[in-house]
């Protein structure tokens, strides 16, 4: 080429990932013959140090001024190669990446067709890169405050980590108290530490920390802006008790005109009753009761004696006129730690939950064995009996094509824990029914061994049904578990007094709504999608938004806490850098040809386009532009262009794909 363009093309084997299907040599040889190509090479791993050095060496030796790498997805290594190109002394944007792994070798079996595809894509890139211009990255300042959504153990741990580092954190929790699922547990596996003993100090620390603003009973309603500068609104539901005035004495609860608790207690999974004014559990944070307007007499009839207010006396903390409030905040980054929901056991009707009263879910049993639970830790059945035999059925709503396909990861271990606790509380004979025992974790297998030594039965077989039909008098009045014991290799009927369903973990029912609000993605099964499963496990595809805990995938407490720490570290790294570099893919107006029609301005969701009536021209604020390119496509006079995605670059790519040599 006479225009001085000298392109280096590098085709990566990626071991056999690419080379196993695509004839890499053929692609490299083909590229060598394309106009403007000064050098074309193939190499085993382009992303490795020697691979990058190869590029830099060629830049010097062959005086290259454009580089094309045909390897994996740009989402994985575009940054790597741009840095390598910059290290060779070129503008990092004189580079284009071709995806022949995810988009070719991994998705096709026909070697010739995959190779032809790779050649087409390389040819298109060679044409495109010749047109690339040198660009500078932009910079955005990062607001140092962080929003954490969800106050379970993940949100609590991330909040404390950030607050201890001196950053201000807004922790927003939907329920009246933080603590999440962990607050409902009695013990934690495999060490059997008391969940409350390890959780409540952290909850208190959240309450006391001067760097944490805790908004419980609240929800994030809107999120606008972008990394470094998010504008968030939070809806604070009225709890009808002023948090700043309440001392947490709970005398109002005592004084409620309901002498007996009559309302289903959500925290105790419906196993007990609460009053219309209540605190979800004794260690709740904030230590402030809440009034439930659905059941409070004053809200229903307006004729209550309001004994609660009398009890509160001079403090005047109770305000039944309280209205919903809205808070508006600015933060630089956001951590989502919205958690999971337990599988609804009614979806597997063969196990009789909801039909037979003595069939329980694991979360219900967590409350039953809990010393601060509805029975004070006594395992009593709904009919008042103490169970002498208990069956624990694993994988309910897990590993099942009809419900949820995935392994929920924690059920084997919590089933072992519950088996141990029930046995300890009742001395009942306990049967565990499992498909596979999955105990990969520190001390997990040893715990399983301990349970076997304790004499708990382990029956390998997926339970067919829980039923009440009795074959003989010995089964009368029992629940019969029918299962093929696949080790003994015959079908068994095991009569028990109590059945525990080890329900799996699934995405919260509003996960889709939440992900839209925060502009993140979900993976196929509905958990929030991390940016990379191995290398960016707490990041999302939206800069500045991080994930922690079971909202990303089922995980146990140690993994959740580790991930929360990682998310906090990522947020800290962002804050402490003070700014973030942005892709130079912004749009800009060619003033000469702009006809001043004004079509573009209302299209921009970020208000980056201003239209001046005086000069009848549009202008784009480079700091506000996020680089979608919608205005570019819409401009009737073709006067808006987009860096990195110039019209001529895209045309070159399309025509390059289609022009057969």
């Amino acid at each position, binding site marked *: 080429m006479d225009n001085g363009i000298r392109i280096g093309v590098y085709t990566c084997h990626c071991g056999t990932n690419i080379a196993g299907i695509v004839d890499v040599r053929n692609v490299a040889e083909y590229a060598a013959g394309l106009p403007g190509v000064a050098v074309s090479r193939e190499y085993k791993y382009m992303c490795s140090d020697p691979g990058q050095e190869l590029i830099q060496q060629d830049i010097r030796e062959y005086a290259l001024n454009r580089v094309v790498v045909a390897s994996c997805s740009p989402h994985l290594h575009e940054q790597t190669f741009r840095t390598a190109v910059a290290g060779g002394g070129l503008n990092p944007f004189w580079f284009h990446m071709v995806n022949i792994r995810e988009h070719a070798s991994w998705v096709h079996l026909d070697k010739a067709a995959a190779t032809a595809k790779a050649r087409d894509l390389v040819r298109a890139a060679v044409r495109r890169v010749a047109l690339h211009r040198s660009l500078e990255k932009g910079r955005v300042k990062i607001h140092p405050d962080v929003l954490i959504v969800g106050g379970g153990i993940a949100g609590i741990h991330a909040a404390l980590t950030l607050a201890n580092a001196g950053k201000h954190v807004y922790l927003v929790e939907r329920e009246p108290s933080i603590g999440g699922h962990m607050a409902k547990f009695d013990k934690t596996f495999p060490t059997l530490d008391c969940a409350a003993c390890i959780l409540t100090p952290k909850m208190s620390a959240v309450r006391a920390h001067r760097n944490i603003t805790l908004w419980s009973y609240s929800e994030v309603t809107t999120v606008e802006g972008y990394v470094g500068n998010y504008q968030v609104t939070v809806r604070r539901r009225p709890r009808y008790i002023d948090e700043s005035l309440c001392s947490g004495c709970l005398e109002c609860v005592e004084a409620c005109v309901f002498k007996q608790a009559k309302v289903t207690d959500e925290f105790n999974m419906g196993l007990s009753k609460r009053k219309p004014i209540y605190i979800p559990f004794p260690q709740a944070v904030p230590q402030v009761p809440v009034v439930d307007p659905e059941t409070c007499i004053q809200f229903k009839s307006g004729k209550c004696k309001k004994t609660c207010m009398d009890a509160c006396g001079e403090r005047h903390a109770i305000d039944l006129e309280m209205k919903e409030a809205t808070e508006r905040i600015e933060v630089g980054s956001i951590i989502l730690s919205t958690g999971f929901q337990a599988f609804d056991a009614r979806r597997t*009707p*063969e196990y009789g939950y909801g*039909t037979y009263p003595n069939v329980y879910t694991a979360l219900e049993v967590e409350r039953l064995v809990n010393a601060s639970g509805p029975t004070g830790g006594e395992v009593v059945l709904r009919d008042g009996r103490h169970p002498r035999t208990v069956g624990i059925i694993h994988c309910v709503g897990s590993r099942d094509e009809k419900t949820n396909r995935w392994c929920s990861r924690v059920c084997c271990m919590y089933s072992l824990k519950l088996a141990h606790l029930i046995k300890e509380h009742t001395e009942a004979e306990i049967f565990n029914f499992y498909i596979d025992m999955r105990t990969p974790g520190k001390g997990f297998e040893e715990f399983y061994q301990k349970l076997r030594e304790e004499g708990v039965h382990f029956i390998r077989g997926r339970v067919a049904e829980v*039923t*009440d*039909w*009795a*074959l003989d008098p010995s089964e009368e009045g029992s629940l019969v578990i029918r299962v093929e014991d696949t080790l003994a290799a015959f079908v068994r009927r095991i009569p028990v007094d109590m059945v525990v369903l080890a329900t799996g973990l699934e995405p919260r029912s509003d996960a889709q709504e939440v992900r839209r609000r925060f502009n993140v993605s979900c993976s196929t099964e509905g958990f929030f999608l991390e940016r990379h499963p191995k290398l960016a496990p707490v990041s999302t595809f939206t800069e500045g938004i991080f994930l922690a805990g079971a909202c990303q995938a089922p995980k146990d407490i140690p993994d959740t806490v580790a991930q929360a720490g990682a998310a906090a570290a990522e947020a800290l790294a962002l804050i402490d850098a003070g700014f973030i570099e942005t892709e130079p893919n912004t749009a800009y107006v060619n003033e000469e040809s702009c006809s001043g029609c004004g079509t573009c301005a209302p299209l921009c969701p970020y208000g980056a386009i201003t239209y001046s009536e005086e000069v009848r021209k549009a202008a784009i604020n480079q700091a506000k532009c996020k680089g979608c390119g919608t205005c570019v496509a819409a401009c009737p006079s073709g006067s808006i262009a987009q860096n990195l995605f110039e019209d001529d670059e895209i045309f070159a790519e399309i025509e390059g794909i289609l022009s057969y040599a």
Partner: protein
Amino acid sequence: MSAFTYFPGCSLRGTGVAYDESLRTLLKVLGIALEELDDWNCCGATSYMAIDEGSAFVLSGRNLSLAREKGNHELLAPCAACYLVLRKTQDYVGRYPAIAEQVGQALSASGLPPLDGVRVRHPLEVLYNDVGTERIRKSVKRKWAGGKVACYYGCQLVRPFAEVDRAHDPTRMDELLRAAGIPTVDYALKTKCCGGSLTGTIHDVGVRLNYIILKEAVRKGAAALATVCPLCQHNLDVYQREIRRSTGEKLDVPVFYFTQLLGWALGSDPDALGLKRQVSGRRLVREWFAEREVAVHG
């Protein structure tokens, strides 16, 4: 009122004749016309499919095709096995091109139209959806004087391909009988298999399955069973003597078609409902269905 093309199937010509009689009688009372599918053939059920799947689908396909040719595309199939095979054929023809081709070729070679567009219906679902419990309630002419009934749905009506009721816990037969003033009991075995043709082959296995189903119904307080399938009714009804011989337990429980019970409640003549064709529990049958007209208003 509505009309159906009627596919009785082989069983309703033999052991299940009372099902045929009671269904015709009941639907007549409700103003639903039946026109029997001319020259219908075996549906290709279980035993046939075990030998030759392709031909089984062709057999089934011919019946569907005949119904389509006839013009009334609502095909009523009371036998659970026929109902399932007809629907399975439709499902597989839609799903697997090879089956579609084989069936299509066989039909066109016989000068028959393609089989699509036919809707296979079952009386339980027709009575529930098209007639409705409310109309049954209003049409009751006789007050029930018998014992509680356990509704036994059997297997094939609530399994894949079927659109009759929920797979795990069907209740529509219970709802219809209760609407007719007949008390029912709930029990966990209502969708367990009766063993099908096992009673004729591996006799002791088949008989035991039926013993378990009958005994559990009795344990839950039922004095009789109601069924929706000729094979279930046959198995539960005619082997109670063998059950007595092998277990020593005398059950003598009458086993009805649900159409017999509904027909009786709606005022039809017991003979027209085939009520004399019961093998077990004949004493109770005589007692419950003795002609003592107790007029119920409406």
